[in-house]
C-alpha cells in the first residue's frame, strides 16, 4: 500500500502564514487610517472609532461603574485621540496607546467625581443594558448571573482606585502584567503588588457575601 505524504505540517505552516499575512494587512490598514486621520480625515477617524469603541467603552464602564460616566469618558478618549493623533508613532501598536489614554481619562473623571462628592453608582443598578456574549436561555441562570455580577462589582467598588484599575486590566480585561504596567505607566512589580492585594481583598469580600465559610 502506498503511503501518502504527511501534509499536516505544510497545512499548519500555510495556516500560520495566512494568519500572519492577514494580521500584517490589518496593521498596515490601521496605519494608513491613522495617518489619514492625523491629517484631519474624518472618515478615516470614524473607521478608527468603529474599530475600538467597544473596547474603550467597556473598559471605561468597568473602571468607572456607571454607564453614563463611561460614555463621557469614551467620548473624551476619542476626542483626545483625534487631537493628539499626530503625536502617536505609527510604527508602534495603537491599542496600548488608546488603553493608556482611556485609563488616564477614567482616572481624571473618577477624581472629578470624588471632588464633586458624587455617589458611586453601582454597575448592576445603573446599567441593565449589558450585553452578554453567552446569554443563557434559562431565566433562573440569567438571574443568578445578574446577582453574581452585582456582588462582584460591589467588591470592585470597595477597592482603592489604583488596585481596582490594575485588577480590572489584569483579571477582567485579561491583559498580561506587562501590558497592565505599560497602560498604568508603572512597573511590573508595582502591578503585581496591586493585583495581589486586590485579589486578597476581593476574596474576603466574596467570602463575606457568601456568609463566611472560614
Amino acid at each position, binding site marked *: 500500500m502506498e503511503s501518502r505524504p504527511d501534509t499536516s505540517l505544510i497545512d499548519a505552516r500555510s495556516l500560520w502564514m495566512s494568519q500572519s499575512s492577514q494580521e500584517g494587512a490589518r496593521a498596515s490598514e490601521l496605519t494608513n487610517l491613522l495617518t489619514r486621520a492625523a491629517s484631519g480625515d474624518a472618515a478615516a477617524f470614524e473607521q478608527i472609532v468603529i474599530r475600538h469603541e467597544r473596547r474603550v467603552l*467597556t473598559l471605561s464602564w468597568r473602571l468607572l461603574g456607571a454607564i453614563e460616566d463611561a460614555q463621557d469618558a469614551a467620548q473624551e478618549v476619542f476626542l483626545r485621540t483625534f487631537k493628539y493623533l499626530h503625536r502617536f508613532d505609527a510604527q508602534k501598536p495603537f491599542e496600548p496607546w488608546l488603553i493608556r489614554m482611556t485609563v488616564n481619562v477614567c482616572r481624571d473623571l473618577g477624581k472629578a467625581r470624588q471632588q464633586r462628592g458624587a455617589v458611586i453608582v453601582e454597575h448592576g443598578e445603573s446599567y441593565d443594558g449589558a450585553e*452578554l456574549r453567552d446569554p443563557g436561555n434559562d431565566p433562573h441562570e440569567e438571574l443568578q448571573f445578574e446577582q*453574581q455580577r452585582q456582588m462582584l462589582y460591589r467588591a470592585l467598588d470597595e477597592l482603592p482606585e489604583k488596585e481596582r484599575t490594575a485588577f480590572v486590566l489584569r483579571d*477582567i480585561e485579561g491583559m498580561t502584567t506587562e501590558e497592565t504596567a505599560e497602560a498604568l505607566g508603572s512597573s511590573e512589580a508595582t502591578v503585581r503588588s496591586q*493585583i495581589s492585594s486586590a485579589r486578597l481583598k476581593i476574596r474576603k469580600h466574596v467570602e463575606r457575601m457568601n456568609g463566611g465559610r472560614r
Partner: protein
Amino acid sequence: MKCTALESLIALYIEGDLPVSSRRRVEAHLQSCSACKTLAEDLRESQSLFKVLRAATVNSSDLSGVRERVLNEVGDLEPVPGWVITVHRLFFAGMRRRNAIAGVLLAALVSGGAWYSQWHLAGERTNEAPVDVASFEVPAPADVANMDQPSVKAPQIVKPAEPLEIPEALPAEVSAEQSVDEPALTQSQVSQIPMKFVTDDPDIIIYWLPTDKGD
C-alpha cells in the same frame, strides 16, 4: 515559613504571575500547609467568578450614542496643521514625548550654560582695571632677556577700597622675591598702590607692595 508572609505570593501564584523560583517555594509550602491550600482554592474560586464578567459588555445603542457624539464634536474641531505633524515627526519620531522633551531641555541647558560662562568671562575681562602703562617704565630689552623663566608680563594694578595694612614680615619676603624675579625699577615708578605681576605659570603670581621709600 510564616503563612501571612506567603498570602500575597499565593494570590499571585493562582494566576501564574510568579517567577519560577517563587512558584516552587509556594508549591512546596502548599503541600505542607492545609490553611494556605484552602486560601489558594478560595482565591481561585473568586477569580473564576470574575472571569465570568469578561462576558458582560456594553450594548450597541450606547456604542452608537458615543460614536455620534464623538463624530459631531470632531466635525467642529480644526485639524492639526500639516507643518505641526511634520515638525513633530522630525523631532519626536521613535521617542517617547517625555524623553524627547527632556533631551531638548537638557541640550538647551548645557548650551545656555556654556554661552553664559563665555559671556561672563568676556564681561570680566572688559571690566578689569586698565593697566597704567604710562607710569610704568618697561625694562630694557636686555634686562628682559636676562630674566629667569617664567617671564613677567605687564603689571595689573589692584586698587584696594581701603588703604592696605601691610604686615611687617611681608616686605622682607616680597623684597626677596623681587630681587630674583623683578627687574629693577626707578624711584619714579614707585607708587602707593600695590601691583600684581601675572606670570606664564598660573601658580606664580607676584605681588608688589611698595613702601613710602619704594622698597
